[in-house]
């Protein structure tokens, strides 16, 4: 199970890298969103997966899953939602203001 999820995380990183390297701003943003999902999967895998268990079953239970990664992922999902939302709005505003939706149009720093 761990191997499978690790491979999945790897595939997500590949997809995200491809998207981030493209010129289109929206693709870059989608890429960063997928990147954060890959890292969430990684955190979960690193905490150890046990099929069919839940984090807390009381002191006597035999199988349980580490609860810390789940707490970490929860926090980090919230943060990545916020950042992605802000990033999308920012891209829209930039498009409105500069008419650019390709990254290479935003290159350089000119005196204004």
């Amino acid at each position, binding site marked *: 199970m761990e191997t499978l999820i690790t491979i999945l995380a790897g595939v997500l990183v590949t997809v995200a890298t491809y998207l*981030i390297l493209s010129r289109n*701003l929206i693709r*870059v943003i989608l890429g*960063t969103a997928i*990147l*954060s999902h890959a*890292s*969430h999967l*990684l*955190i979960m*895998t*690193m*905490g150890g997966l046990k099929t069919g268990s839940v984090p807390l079953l009381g002191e006597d239970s035999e199988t349980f899953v580490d609860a*810390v*990664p789940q707490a*970490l992922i929860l*926090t*980090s999902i919230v*943060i990545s939602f*916020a*950042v992605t939302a*802000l*990033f999308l709005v*920012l*891209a829209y*505003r*930039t498009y409105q*203001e*500069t008419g*650019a939706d390709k*990254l290479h149009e*935003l290159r350089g*720093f*000119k*005196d*204004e």
Partner: protein
Amino acid sequence: MNNLLVLLMALPVLVGIVLIFLRRYVRLQRWISFSVMIINFIISIILLNQIQEQGPLRLDFGGWEPPFGIMFVADSFSVILVLTTSIVTVVCLLYAFSSIGKSYENMFFYSFVNFLVAGVNGSFLTGDLFNLYVCFEVMLLASYVLITLGGKKVQLRESIKYVAINVVSSWIFLVSIAYLYGAMGTLNFAHLSERIAESGQTPLLTVISVIFLTVFSLKAGLFLYYWLPGSYSAPPTAVAALFGALLTKVGIYAMFRVFTLLFYHEPAITHTIIGFLAGVTLVGGSIGAIAYKDIRQIVSYNVVIAVGFILVGLAVMTPEAIEGSIYYLMHDMIVKALLFLLAGTMISLTGYVRIDHMSGLIKNYPLLGWMFFIVMLSLAGVPPLSGFIGKLLIGQGAVEVESYLLLTLVFISSIFVLYSLLRVFLTSFWGETLISEDDEEPMKKGWLIPCVLLTVVTIGLGLGAETVAVYVADAANTLLNPDIYIDAVFND
């Protein structure tokens, strides 16, 4: 247990939220956020003195015992930085009162400054790695908003790059946290330090430490600083000064924390890399600082040089060098804020950003000119001012471990700092004045007073080195002996 600790972060957060509801009462917003920073200043002085007596303080949230709960730990190093943060923020707020404009103030400017400070203070105080990430994000989200507030073309264009780079670096941060958790099974700094010391720093851990190095280099602008000059030049002066003074310093703090408390067993690998990166940063920053004629770029590249400079101290890792780095960190936060404020004032007085379009400013604004002169000397490290002691100690440390290459780079880069600023001073303050008496833009008191305050602080920090030395020595001692930190966390 010390409940004062939480106020440093909780107060700005709560006040930031309250200010959202006070949107229309600009004057009230101003003074509330101003007094919050003053209160933070007082609290951190109290804490600093308590730490002197009792050693590092801690606060377990919800009463959960250390390795299990989340907590704040305050040692001298973090509280010194919190203290400096509040000084810088007070002054930047004071400058913002008369320069930022109604449109900003109505769009929650003060709320976001408060959130930014909350994130910065949280990063300095937190006792575990994941909350460091969370506080980083709080700070970054506030900075994303501050950099785009106003929505000018240049701001939007620069902020896209800034946000993209920071999102990717946050992702690397998460990945490295995941790996470290997988390897060690804990995220508490003290607990991690103990476990790494027990198991020895295996090659796996060294690789993880290098991933951390990558993240913090991106945040601090060590070597990977390409995003920095553009994004620090875009926002209005008061915001740029806050950024220049605070944001990179959090990355530097994180690097100090991680590489003195956790991964200090393999200095031959990690600290050599840091030394190499610091050297390259010094060279790159120096080239940038003299390459441009846009004053905002010159000032931003000076931030880069300082980052390289402070991290030479970490690479060298002798007691003197660490002390020097801490001293220089304080000095740099104050002086960089002052430098950004002065540069911004020059731009708003003349309406130009290129130094060859300004001339003879000292005839019209003598005080501004002399303050720029003092900043220049302070950054170059001329004795009575605050930069000197840091440079001296870092240099001394570099001599001790015989890394003469770093030593040379450190002092040559100081000359480049001096040269880049002297060029600004000569072309824009000296010479024929271009402004006739009729067109002279009156200097606002609100612009001058904050700069004067910071100038006084930088002179005071140089002359009053004896008073600060006690705290700095304690901070360096805690950094070099992780046992003190671990003891403070696990034993009451």
